[in-house]
C-alpha cells in the first residue's frame, strides 16, 4: 500500500506499465477519507437513475407535428417535444428553455426557391438569438423546394422519406459538446470494473515535472532519471497533446489526445525498460472529465484535474467528480486552487489561505497546486481550442465545392439591393437572380457532382443583355467575398489555437515563502503535498528552498522547451526567430515552422537510446544543473504532510 505510506519511495519500474483499467468499487489504495458533507435528509445517493432533464428538447411547429409523414420521423428521435403554435410561438418557447437544452426547432417552409433561401436565413437568425448552435429544420413537402446545401451550418430540410435526422441530431450535439465546456462538466458515468495498478507514491522527495512539447523530449528526461536514480515526472496537457504532438484530429480533439496519451505511455514504458529510468507520466491542466478518463485509461501515473477556472464551489464539485473517476484507476490526483492558468478568473492573484483551506477540506486529493507568487506562462486553453476547431469544422462543412450557402447569401443580398434601389419584384433583374439561384441548385443535382457555379455564370453571361452584366458581376463579387470571409475566419481561428508562445519576459517571479508555509501547514497531517507550477519563473535560490517546504513536485515548462530547442539548434541549425511572410497569422506560422523543424530534426529519436546525440547529452546536463539539482538536498526524510 505505497500510497498510504507516503515516505516510502516506489520501487524502480522496470517493466512496462499496461494501460490501466478501472478497479471495482469507488476506493483504491492510497485514497484518504472522503471529506464530503452528508447529503440533506431525503436525498438519495449521487449514483441515481437517469434524469429526464438530460434529454434534449425539440420545438416543433404544430403544422409540422400534425403532418402525417413528418411526425413519426420526429417521434423516433425520442426528444422532449414542445409543440409551438400561434398561441405559443417558437421564440417564446426558446425564451423559456435554457439555450443548450433545445436540440432543434422544426418549422414548415412556406415558400420555395430563392424566397425559401431568404426565408430560411431570416428565420434561422431570429431563432438563434440566444443560441448560435441551435439546430434548425425546415419541413418541405418536396425536397426540390430548397437545396439543403444552400443552408448554413446545423440547418437542414426535412422532406418525406428522410432517414438522416438522427445524424443531424448527433451533429448538433457534437458541435455543442465541443463549444460548451459546461456540457462536458457533467459527472462522468461509472466505468466498468476491472484491475488496476498500484498508485505511485505521493511523495518521493521533491521531484521535477517537465513539460513534453514533443515526444523526443522524453529521452533526455528518462536519461536524467536513470542517471540520478530518482523519479522524474513528465507532463503533457491536453492542449499540448493536440497542438504539439497529435497527428490528426479527424475524429475529434479528444480522440486525437487519447491517441497521443497511449503513444506516450508506450514510449515511456520502452524508455524505462531500456534505460532503467523511473519516468512518470502526468496529465497537466485537464479541465474536462473526458480527458481525465482518457489519461487514466492510457495508464498515466498521475493526473491534474484543473477546476481553477471555475468558482471555488464549482471547482470543488468538478474536482470531486474527477477524483472519484481517477481513484477507480489508482491514479494520483492533483487539484488546483487559485487560478494560476491563463483561463483562470484570478490569474494575477495569489491563492488565499482561506480558499486553500476550504478546497483541501472539501476535496480528497493527493497533491494540490496553488498560486504562491510564481508566473505561469503557457495558456492552457484546451476548451477554447476545442471551440475554435469545432467552429472551423462547421465552416468547412458548408464551405465545400462552390459553396452554395455563400451563393444563397449573395443572392439574398443582391435581391435586397435590387429592392432597395426601387426595382419591383417582377422586374427582369429580380427574375434573373431567382433564375440563377434555381440554376445553381439544379446544376449540381447529380449524385456527387456538386454545383458548377462557374458554368452557371458563364452561361448567364452569354444570354443576358449587356446592361444586366454588372448585376452578374455584383453577384459573383458578393459570393466570392462571402467565401473569402469564411476563409479569413478560419485563419483567425487557427491563430487563436496556435498563438501560444512561451513568455520568457516574466522570468524570475518572487515566491511568497510565508504563503507556502501557510499552505503546507494546512496540509500538515492530511498526507497531501503541495505542487508548484511555473517552476521556470523561479530563481535558483527559490527553487532550492522548495524541498525544505516539503513541496512534492515543481513543474517546468516554457524554459525547458526553449532550452531543448536551443540545444537542438546546435545539432540542426536553423533560425526559428525570424518568420517570413506567412499566409496565416504569426502564431500559426511560428508553430508550423517549429513543429516541422522538430519533426525533421528528431525523426529517429526512438533509436537514440543506445547512443544519444550530443545535443541530448547537452540538454540532459542542463536539466540536471538548472532544474533537478536545486530540488535536491534539505528535503525532509518523510512527507511533509506526515502519514495519512
Amino acid at each position, binding site marked *: 500500500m505505497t500510497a498510504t505510506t507516503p515516505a516510502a519511495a516506489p520501487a524502480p519500474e522496470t517493466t512496462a506499465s499496461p494501460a490501466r483499467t478501472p478497479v471495482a468499487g469507488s476506493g483504491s489504495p492510497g485514497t484518504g477519507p472522503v471529506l464530503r458533507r452528508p447529503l440533506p435528509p*431525503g*436525498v438519495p445517493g449521487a449514483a441515481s437513475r437517469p434524469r*429526464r432533464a438530460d434529454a434534449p428538447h425539440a420545438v416543433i411547429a404544430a403544422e409540422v407535428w400534425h403532418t402525417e409523414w413528418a411526425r413519426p420521423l420526429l417521434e423516433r428521435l425520442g426528444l422532449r417535444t414542445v409543440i409551438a403554435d400561434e398561441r405559443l410561438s417558437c421564440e417564446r418557447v426558446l425564451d423559456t*428553455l*435554457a439555450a443548450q437544452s433545445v436540440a432543434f426547432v422544426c418549422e414548415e417552409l412556406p415558400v420555395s426557391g430563392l424566397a425559401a433561401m431568404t426565408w430560411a436565413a431570416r428565420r434561422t437568425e431570429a431563432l438563434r438569438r440566444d443560441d448560435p448552435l441551435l439546430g434548425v429544420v425546415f419541413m418541405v413537402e418536396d425536397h426540390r423546394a430548397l437545396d439543403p446545401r444552400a443552408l448554413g451550418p446545423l440547418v437542414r430540410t426535412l422532406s418525406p422519406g428522410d432517414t438522416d435526422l438522427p445524424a443531424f441530431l448527433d451533429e448538433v450535439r457534437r458541435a455543442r459538446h465541443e463549444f460548451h465546456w459546461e456540457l462536458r462538466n*457533467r459527472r462522468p458515468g461509472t466505468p466498468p470494473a476491472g484491475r488496476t495498478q498500484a498508485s505511485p507514491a505521493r511523495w518521493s522527495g521533491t521531484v521535477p515535472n517537465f513539460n513534453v512539447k514533443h515526444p523526443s523530449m522524453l529521452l533526455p528526461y528518462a536519461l536524467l532519471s536513470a542517471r540520478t536514480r530518482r523519479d522524474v515526472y513528465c507532463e503533457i496537457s491536453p492542449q499540448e497533446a493536440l497542438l504539439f504532438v497529435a497527428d490528426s484530429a479527424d475524429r475529434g480533439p479528444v480522440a486525437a489526445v487519447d491517441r497521443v496519451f497511449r503513444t506516450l505511455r508506450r514510449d515511456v514504458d520502452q524508455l524505462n525498460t531500456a534505460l532503467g529510468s523511473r519516468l512518470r507520466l502526468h496529465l497537466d491542466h485537464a479541465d474536462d472529465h473526458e480527458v481525465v478518463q482518457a489519461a487514466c485509461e492510457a495508464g498515466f501515473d498521475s493526473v491534474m484535474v484543473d477546476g481553477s477556472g471555475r468558482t471555488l*464551489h464549482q471547482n470543488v464539485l468538478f474536482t470531486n467528480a474527477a477524483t472519484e473517476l481517477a481513484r477507480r484507476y489508482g491514479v494520483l490526483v492533483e487539484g488546483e486552487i487559485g487560478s494560476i492558468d491563463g483561463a483562470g478568473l484570478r490569474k494575477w492573484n495569489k491563492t488565499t489561505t482561506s480558499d486553500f483551506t476550504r478546497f483541501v477540506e472539501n476535496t480528497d486529493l493527493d497533491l494540490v497546486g496553488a498560486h504562491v507568487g510564481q508566473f505561469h506562462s503557457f495558456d492552457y486553453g484546451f476548451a477554447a481550442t476545442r471551440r475554435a476547431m469545432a467552429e472551423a469544422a462547421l465552416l468547412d462543412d458548408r464551405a465545400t465545392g462552390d459553396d452554395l450557402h455563400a451563393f444563397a447569401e449573395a443572392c439574398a443580398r443582391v435581391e435586397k439591393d435590387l429592392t432597395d434601389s426601387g426595382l419591383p419584384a417582377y422586374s427582369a433583374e429580380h427574375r434573373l437572380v431567382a433564375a440563377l439561384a434555381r440554376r445553381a441548385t439544379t446544376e449540381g443535382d447529380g449524385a456527387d457532382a456538386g454545383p458548377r457555379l462557374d458554368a452557371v455564370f458563364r452561361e448567364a453571361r452569354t444570354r443576358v443583355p449587356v446592361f444586366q452584366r454588372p448585376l452578374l458581376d455584383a453577384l459573383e463579387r458578393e459570393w466570392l467575398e462571402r467565401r473569402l470571409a469564411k476563409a479569413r475566419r478560419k485563419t483567425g481561428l487557427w491563430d487563436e489555437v496556435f498563438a501560444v508562445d512561451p513568455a520568457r519576459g516574466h522570468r524570475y517571479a518572487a515566491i511568497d515563502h510565508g504563503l507556502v508555509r501557510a499552505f503546507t501547514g494546512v496540509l500538515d497531517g492530511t498526507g497531501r503535498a503541495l505542487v508548484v507550477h511555473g517552476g521556470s519563473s523561479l530563481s535558483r535560490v527559490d527553487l532550492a528552498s522548495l524541498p525544505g517546504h516539503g513541496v512534492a513536485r515543481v513543474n517546468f515548462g516554457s524554459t525547458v522547451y526553449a532550452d531543448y530547442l536551443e540545444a537542438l539548434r546546435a545539432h540542426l541549425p536553423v533560425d526559428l526567430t525570424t518568420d517570413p511572410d506567412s499566409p496565416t497569422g504569426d502564431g500559426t506560422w511560428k508553430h508550423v515552422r517549429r513543429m516541422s523543424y522538430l519533426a525533421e530534426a528528431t525523426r529517429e529519436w526512438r533509436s537514440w537510446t543506445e547512443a544519444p546525440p550530443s545535443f541530448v547529452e547537452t540538454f540532459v546536463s542542463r536539466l540536471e544543473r538548472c532544474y533537478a539539482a536545486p530540488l535536491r538536498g534539505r528535503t525532509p526524510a518523510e512527507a511533509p504532510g506526515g502519514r495519512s
Partner: protein
Amino acid sequence: MRAAEQDSDIGVVDDEAQAAVVAAEEIIDEASGGDGGVFGHAWSDDRVAHLLERLASDFVLDNTYREQHLSLTASENYPSKLVRMLGSGLQGGFYEFAPPYPAEAGEWAFPDSGANASLVGKLTGIGRQLFEAATFDWRPNGGSVAEQAVLLGTCGRGDGFVHFAHKDGGHFALESLAAAAGINTYHLPMVDRTLLIDVDRLATLCGEHPEIKLVILDQSFKLRWQPLAQIRAALPEGVFLAYDSSHDGALIAGGVLPQPTLLGADAVHGNTHKTIAGPQKAYIAFRDADHPKLRAVSDWVCPQMQSNSHAELIAPMYVALSEIALHGHDYARQIVANAKVLAQALHEEGVRVSGESFGFTETHQVHVITGSAADALRLSLGDLAHAGIRTTNIEVPGANGLHGLRLGVQAMTRRGLREAEMREVARLVAKVVLRRAEPTAVRAEVADLLRHHPLDELAYSFDAHVDSPAAARLLGEVFR
C-alpha cells in the same frame, strides 16, 4: 297498380336508403379501423391522441421551466412526488366536512365510506401537534379565505381591525373586504429601522379605538419575528390576536421560530404551499377549543365562504405536514442558514440588502433594494427572468418607499442547495443586478448549478421512499 307502384317506389326508396346505410357503414367501418368496433373509434382516438399530445407538450415546457429555473420567490415551493400524486385520489366527491367544533350532521351531510373521517383525523392530529393548537381546521381552500374568515368571524359592522400596511408587508386580501363589511381598518405602527411593531403605539391605538376587535399579523414581506408576547400583553382583553404563518409555517413547525399560540395568539392560520411544501390549501388552528370565536370563524370558512373543501387535498396535506414532522427541524434550520448566507453573500458582492442592523433576516426571506418600482419590475420580469432566476418585486419595508426584490430560499433548500450553493446563487444574482451581465450567459450558469440538484430528488421530503413497496401499494390504490 297504384299500390304496386307505391310499393315499387317504396322499394326504390328503401334501396337507396339501404345503399346509403351500407355506404355510411363502410365509412364508419373504415374510420374505426375495419374491426367493426365502437362507432368512430379510430377517429375519436386520433383526436384524443392529438389533445393529449398537446397537453403533454405544455407539461414538458412547464416541467423544464421548473427544472432549469432558480426559484427564489418567497411564496412557492416544490411539493414532493407523494404530495403531488396523492391528489389524484378522492376526486369527484362533494363532501360536507365537520367543523372543528362539536356539531351534528346537517342538511348537506353525505354518507361516505368512513375513510374521509379517518384521513381528516390523521391530518388534524398532526396539524394540532405542529402548531401547538387545540383545533386544526384544514378546510380553507387558501390563505386568503382563512384570513378573511378570521376577519369576518371576529369583527362585525362598526368594529375595527389592525394589520400591517401594505408598505410594511401587509396582505392585500383584507382591506377591501373590511370596507365592504363596514369594518374599520388600522395599520400596525412600525419602527422602520428595526422592522418591528411599535408595541407602545399599538397599545395606544387600541386604547383610543375600543372598536378594534382584531389584531392580525398578516405580513407577507417578513424578515423578522415580531414580539408576540409583548403585543399580547399590550392588547386589551377581548381583542383577538391572529398570526398569519403562511410564510413561516415550516419555520414555526420546525422549531426555529416560536409557536404563536404559546406566546398569546388566539389563532394561527396560513396556507400550505410556501415554506410548507404542500398543496394549495390552508388551515386555521385555535389555541383554545372553547374559544368564543371558534364557531363564528369556522362557519365563515364553511359554508359561508366556500361549500367544497377539496377532499382530494386532505392526503397531500397530511403527507406535506408529515414531511415537516419528520424533517422539519433540519429543514427549518437549513432555510434560515441559507437565507442568512444568501443575504450576507449578496451584501459582500455589493448588493444593497435590507436589514443589515439585525443580520439581514430571521426568516426564509431576503429583501434586496434596487431603486424605483420600474427598476425592480425590469429586473424581476426582465433580466433576472431571462437569466433563469425567478423573483418577485416589492416595495421593500423600511426602505423609504424604495422598491426591490423579495427573495425566498425555501424552494431551493428543498432542492438541496446549502450554504456553499447559496454563495453561488448570490454571485449569479449580483452578476445580473449589479454588473448587468448578459442574462443568457448567467442562465447557462444557473442551469449548470441546478443540474446538480434535480427536482425528482427533493431534500426533506419522502421522495426517497416513493419507490418503496409501501408507496407502490398506496399509489396503486390511489390510481385504481
